[in-house]
């Protein structure tokens, strides 16, 4: 059997059978499972296609597995507090964790703690990167969502604290989920909140584009890759599909009932906490507090399969299958460093711990970095990558 293109990764709060498991998106059969502990919600992430990171529920450490060695817990990263959400950048260079009100940013190549961002007033509930890793969006229980520019956050400038580039403050209740669309800094971001709305924003300007008001609080949100549809998981177990582009261009459709596009996926009996769409936009994965994960066909809105878990589903996501996942004898290209627990600028400067050099943008380049815009993050990433190779 050829290796699948995409896989489903899901975890629940009980962790009786496994911590997290990998399923076939088409049949729902289980491929692999990773054991040990359980994972809190929105804190399961795949790093660089080589590691799986999941924050332990209610504890202050992160479990790490090498993606091919499923039975063995590789490492535990101890953090300064309980991790409420976790996200690795798509390019695999950084890891972000929400720990209480603060966001911690680690560099993967050295394990250095680069920044502690405390701009939220309450627990951070969700963090997401844009697909080019240039920006990230964090949402908290203080009703705020913040858009950050990664390059301005990692700058080595102790005199000024990093500021978010935009503050999205139009939600009136805690933010439950965030989804970043494609297209890097030109992407659109959707935020879901308990105030019964889903709002769509532009990353580059921080402007709100759309606000949809529902009857129930919304616990999860996602786009399909083309951004034709917005899927919103309600707290009553329904999944609402909002079509973002009107298709009323053809004359024939005018007098038809408007049953296409705007529909509800019914089946869950409790909060829908996770949603994810496959890369071709035909399959929708949903995880719920009624302890099931369901796969839906977007076109027909039928449930294709469902898997019972033993506890509330905390994470369920469709990801492109990492190359190493099904090769038992593969090894990660880069060993995982020790994560430092403290901001230590002096150590970061010369990088004595790992014996390599660490390059970061200095304060002088900042003005430039803020003004030239689109291409700066790219440049920065390349710089970081060079660092990464220099270290090992």
């Amino acid at each position, binding site marked *: 059997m050829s290796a699948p293109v995409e896989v489903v990764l899901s975890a629940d709060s009980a962790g009786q059978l496994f911590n997290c498991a990998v399923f076939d998106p088409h049949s729902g059969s289980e491929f692999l499972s990773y054991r040990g502990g359980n994972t809190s919600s929105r804190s399961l992430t795949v790093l660089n296609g080589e590691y799986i990171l999941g924050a332990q529920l209610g504890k202050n450490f992160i479990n790490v597995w090498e993606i091919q060695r499923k039975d063995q817990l590789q490492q535990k990263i101890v953090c300064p507090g309980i991790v409420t959400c976790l996200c690795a950048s798509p390019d695999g260079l950084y890891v972000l964790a929400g720990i209480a009100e603060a966001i911690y940013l680690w560099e993967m190549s050295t394990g250095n703690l680069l920044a502690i961002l405390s701009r939220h007033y309450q627990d951070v509930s969700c963090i997401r990167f844009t697909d080019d890793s240039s920006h990230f969006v964090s949402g908290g229980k203080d009703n705020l969502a913040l858009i950050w520019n990664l390059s301005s956050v990692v700058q080595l400038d102790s005199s000024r604290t990093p500021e978010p580039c935009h503050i999205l403050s139009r939600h009136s209740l805690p933010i439950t989920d965030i989804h970043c669309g494609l297209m890097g800094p*030109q992407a659109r971001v959707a935020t879901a909140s308990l105030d019964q709305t889903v709002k769509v924003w532009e990353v580059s300007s921080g402007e709100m584009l759309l606000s949809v008001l529902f009857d129930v609080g919304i616990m999860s949100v996602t786009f399909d890759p083309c951004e034709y549809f917005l899927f919103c998981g309600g707290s009553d177990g329904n999944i609402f599909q909002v079509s973002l582009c009107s298709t009323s261009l053809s004359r024939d459709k005018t007098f038809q009932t408007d049953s296409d596009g705007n529909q509800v996926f019914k089946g869950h009996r409790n909060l829908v906490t996770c949603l994810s769409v496959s890369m071709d936009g035909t399959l929708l994965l949903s995880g719920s507090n009624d302890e099931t994960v369901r796969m839906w066909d977007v076109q027909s809105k039928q449930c294709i399969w469902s898997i019972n878990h033993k506890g509330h589903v905390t994470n369920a996501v469709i990801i492109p299958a990492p190359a190493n996942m099904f090769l038992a004898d593969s090894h990660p290209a880069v060993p995982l460093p020790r994560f430092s627990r403290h901001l230590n600028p002096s150590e970061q400067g010369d990088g004595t711990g790992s014996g390599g050099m660490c390059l970061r943008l200095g304060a002088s380049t900042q003005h430039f970095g803020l003004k030239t815009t689109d291409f700066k993050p790219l440049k920065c990433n390349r710089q970081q990558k060079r660092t990464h190779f220099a270290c090992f």
Partner: protein
Amino acid sequence: MKAKKQKRQGDFQKVQLKVGKKKPKADNATNVNFRSKAIHLPEQLKHVDSGPTKHRQLDIMDLLSKLHHINSNIKQGALVGLRELLSAQPSMIELHASAVLSEVAALFTDKDGSVRAAAVRLLRFITQCIPAERVVPFFPLLSAHLTCAMTHISEAIQEDALRVLDVLLEHYPGLLSQRHTVLLTNFLELISQKRKAATGQDKSGKGGFALTISTNRSVTAQQWRLTVLLRLGSFLQAVVEERPLDEGVTSSIGLGMWAGEKGSVTSVDVSWEEHVFGKGRIQVFENSGAVPTPHSAYRLRPDSKAGAGMNKELCSAETVQGFAGTLVPLLLEIWVEAAGGDHVQTDSGHLLSAEAMALMFQILTILQLLRRVSPHRDQKDILDAWFRNSYLADFKHHFMKNFPYGLLEVARHKKKADGKRIRQQVAAGTVAGGNVEPLALNVTLCQVMVTLSLRGQDHVEAEDADWLGTIRVFIRETLSNGGKLSSKHLAALLEVVWRMIVTQRSRVVTDDLLQAVYVQYQQRNLAVSVRSLLLCFFSQFYIQEHQNHPHIARSRILARWLASLPVQLVQLGSRNPQLSAQLLETIHPAAARGNKDLLQSLQKNACSIYDPQEGCVVVLPVESQKRLVQILHSLPAFPAELLACLSQVCNTGRVSASLATMLIRTIHLRSPLCGWSSSSQDVPVKDVDYLSFFFTTLTGFSSEMLQALQDTDEDSLLPSSILSPLSVFATTLEQFLHHWDIVEEVCHCLDTLGSRAQCFDVIQNAIIKNLCGLVVVPDCVCAAILRCVPRLLDVNFLPSDTLLHFLSDCCLSMLNLLLQLEQSAHKRDAVWEACFAALSTVPRLLRLVLQSFRVCDLCEEELPVLAQILSLLLQHTQLRNHMMANASLLQHIIQDLTHFYGGETREQWLTDLLYCYSVTLFGHRANMGMRDIY
């Protein structure tokens, strides 16, 4: 034969004329017995049916041609004539706009004063009639003539040019502000002249211009300068207001400084229901998708839009600097001269005459406007820094030396002597700037000076300390001396306070200034606008600056203010909903951010805010109610009495059902039983309280109310009988439906709790304990119980007998009620749904109900009712199987029924019942038979 002849003669009879007789009239004679009268037409008939096209026999072309006449009286007459003609017939203005405007504009520079005055009058009239967008093509011409007049060698013409400017500024500020490059130099030249490079008197070294004094003006040099500066001020104002909107726009009133985010993209707002029913088509991508918004920080190429065009030049800091570099030394010089003149008269420098005060006010206004001209924030900072470097010393020396200025009382006799001059002032139009309050002057000075204090540079703090200290003292005293300030002055003062706190970064200063504002805030009987201004200041100050500046975050005054908000909300009640809404706008984000002071105070006042009788949550309008419910999300703890209040709020019907469901969901989410909130250290809602809240909300009546119901005997009470074991208290339709919606939500929440068996056990105990003993039960309670129990019942769980008996009583009473309900289909449906759900999910319940039909005890009138109930149950297909399980019991009842019914004729109800019974029974048998065959 003869007869024939006679006849022929009759035809052509000759009339014999005789002398002395009148000649008979011929048949074709004309009757001339009429009189004619003349009709005078004073004017020609017109083809156009409105107004004259001529004025004194001159049409518009004649009048226009007369404007070139050499005689000024004729010119003036023609101008007056034009005005009268055009006002009689406004449609001609548009027709001849180009000709009229060009001719009139040419007269701006006429030698004769009366002609110019008439021209200005005509211009004023025309501008009133033509909107700005139609003048655009003629405007270059107008402004060229204006420039010509402003730079004219004759001073009288210069003066009148300012009047033209006034007219244009009033009506076409946008068009005029685009001509700033030319006009600004003109302004300069009105009061000064270019220094010759050769002359050695270049002592200031800054400006290339020197003030001019001409002796032959009708007004003094100072008054002349004041009039020019007034125009310059209003021109700059127009430039500031009319430029294309961009980020960080600050309006002149100062409140704009705190205005929240102002999106250039209008976002699409839809609600799910509208969307589903196809009313709201979402067009996100059409709305903003293809091109990123102008606010976007990412630009692939520089903007090349034509719209920004002209104004772009003035936006950059360099241009403003260039202009300011010339203007500011002049302004200083003007001030020095004016103040110098005053010093001669008085030795106390802080007292100014009204004239000097007006002059200074104008100078300060212009300085302020200069800073605002550049719209971008970063450019503003550059400009501030530049001003500071170039002019701080000058400003300090000239303006701050005698800082709090007062009005010099002009002695009586002096005024009399100057009567003539004052009259001239009136003529020159300086009265507008003539009466400036000292407070306005001082506040404006503060505003100007404070912008010079840079943010965040420690080394300059010491040198700024002296003059900033003076300003601080002034502000503190003005705010806290108990006087009432107008909202305009207050807004300016608050702007100064804001800036000072942000730039100075010291806790002492912060507390000092905030204390003063707080004193003002605490005054009683403030006007609503002032009160809301202060509120707005505090709340924006808290929300925007709180996080960035630790010295603000630690401010005690701010904490005290926040803590006082919930109390104010309670005290305000329903008296001023707008103010309450404003209070909530601060309370909500502060609570969401977990501000300790606010939360403590909120917790303390929670019971009065959420009081079901007169709390804010019931008396305020819907929007505020919604906010109050949302604030519950961040309340740290829910004690039992608060939950009791909230439960009553849900049920009294003073908040809408949708809001009540939102409230219930909030409580549900806050409880650890829900399993949403991951942090398990603090428990906002205890499990016991949670369940009792839900049970109370489910019943909708408190135990006292139920107890009170037992003793009343009202008309709405349906008496108990064998068929209705409970005496039913019929609630109003409205209350019933409201409660029905709430029950739905409660059931849904309880349904999603983890362990259903335990949950059901708790609810069962609660019902047995609180409801089973009752004799009188409201119908909505019955319906709620009947609806809730089957939804929560687990298959493996056996409900207790007491509960089942109570349920069967409820069910019977409801079925009985159902037959009496005619008025509302909605209520009927709801009641039937509840009964049906209960009977179909709990088979034992159906048996109990059937067992309780003791036919022998019934009186004759009740028999039809029983029969109707039975046929209702039999008719329902989904109940049929359960009915068949009790076939023997059913048969027994029907036998009894026919037996006890003594009537001779078979009534309709009996026929119906027997028909239903037979259909059910035999239909079932037939089914069984069919099944046997296969």
